[in-house]
């Protein structure tokens, strides 16, 4: 059989270290022994996919999941899922979840004393089109306090989860907003050493996707690990 084409190595410093002491929860949960490096096999270059019909078209509009309209500023969050070779990743699942405009999650563990919004659950799904594009309509999430350290606040963010074409390309990350004053103080945003890589988690305000008298547009591209060139067949 042919050798398996793997994925390009990750650029040093562009991914978080597992143990990042300013993020207190990592101290008891990050493994302490070195990861075991292994080659890509058929198991890792294949992976799950979902059928597009598993995702309802309305799942990408978080402002229309209830009888009334949610409180807050409507925004359009759109972008492309590409790989490191700039190939569009079509038909891949993109999932998001987020706090409401007041900075409260629709989750029983979130005890922040900001109001819940009966018209906002804060989760959505979309499947990318042939150009790798996705688009969500949602509400700009609020910042919120957490107990990582004294006077700790999370910068406003939206969680993103992408399956990608294989097990190897799985990605879960967070999208931030330009100009957020909390970014320098957020240990989760700052867990990655490489400043440029970190800053690519900040979405870009975009006139083109802004809808007049309706919603501001933000662009956020997601880049999945790229494939190495297919090795020659073994002689």
């Amino acid at each position: 059989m042919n050798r398996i084409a793997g994925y390009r190595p990750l650029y040093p410093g562009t991914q978080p270290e597992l143990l990042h002491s300013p993020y207190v929860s990592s101290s008891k949960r990050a493994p302490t022994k070195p990861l075991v490096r292994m080659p890509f096999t058929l198991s890792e270059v294949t992976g799950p996919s979902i059928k597009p019909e598993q995702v309802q078209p309305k799942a990408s509009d978080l402002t229309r999941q209830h009888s009334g309209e949610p409180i807050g500023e409507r925004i359009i969050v759109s972008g492309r899922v590409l790989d490191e070779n700039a190939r569009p990743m079509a038909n891949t699942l993109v999932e998001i979840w987020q706090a409401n405009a007041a900075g409260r999650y629709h989750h029983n563990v979130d005890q922040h004393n900001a109001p819940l919004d009966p018209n906002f659950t804060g989760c959505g799904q979309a499947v990318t089109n042939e150009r790798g594009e996705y688009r969500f309509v949602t509400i700009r999430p609020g910042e919120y306090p957490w107990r990582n350290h004294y006077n700790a606040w999370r910068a406003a963010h939206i969680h993103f989860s992408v399956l990608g074409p294989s097990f190897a390309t799985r990605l879960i990350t967070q999208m931030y907003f330009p100009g957020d004053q909390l970014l320098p103080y957020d240990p989760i945003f700052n867990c990655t050493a490489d400043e440029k890589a970190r800053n690519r988690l900040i979405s870009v305000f975009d006139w083109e996707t802004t809808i007049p008298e309706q919603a501001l547009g933000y662009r956020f591209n997601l880049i999945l690990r790229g494939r190495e060139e297919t090795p020659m067949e073994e002689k």
Partner: protein
Amino acid sequence: MSLQATTWQTVGPFFRIGCHWLNQDNLVGEGVSGERVTIQGRVMDGDGAPVPDAMIEIWQANAQGRYAHPEDTQSKLLEPGFTGYGRIPTDGDGVFRFTTIKPGPVPGPDRKDQAPHILVSVFMRGLLTRLITRIYFPDDPHNATDYVLNLVEPERRSTLIGKRVAGRPGMLEWNVVLQGPDETVFFELGL
């Protein structure tokens, strides 16, 4: 053109609202062949405390050893009732449980078949990226020659192998231990 892969971030404590719609703890659809197995375990942190806010994802081949994916071009039979994908959150006691079939052998990097195995991604608050690990099956004769198992120090290999549960045929116990002497082996993809 060359881009850089997006930086991972933690799933945080509230991922359930976004991820639960795709939960799947029974991978075995109608008419699927193979040996049924239920795998149960617990996720434990550095204090040995259960982790109630974790999630695992499963990826595996079917009983024939074929992945439901276009890059698996083997001539083995595909089964419509089996996608090989599961997503399972832990409960309040840090316990997860899923039912699947024992996968068949799939090709390995050394031209030999790999021992039957299940790929696992582990996600939780406190983990800045996912953790990648594997579940192997006890007493499988292929384990001794499995390429990936042989990359692991012999004394740590048992963390990757499910254990039979006395009096519960068809059930395996396999835990995710994040730290300590029994720390589970986690992998990094790419040599």
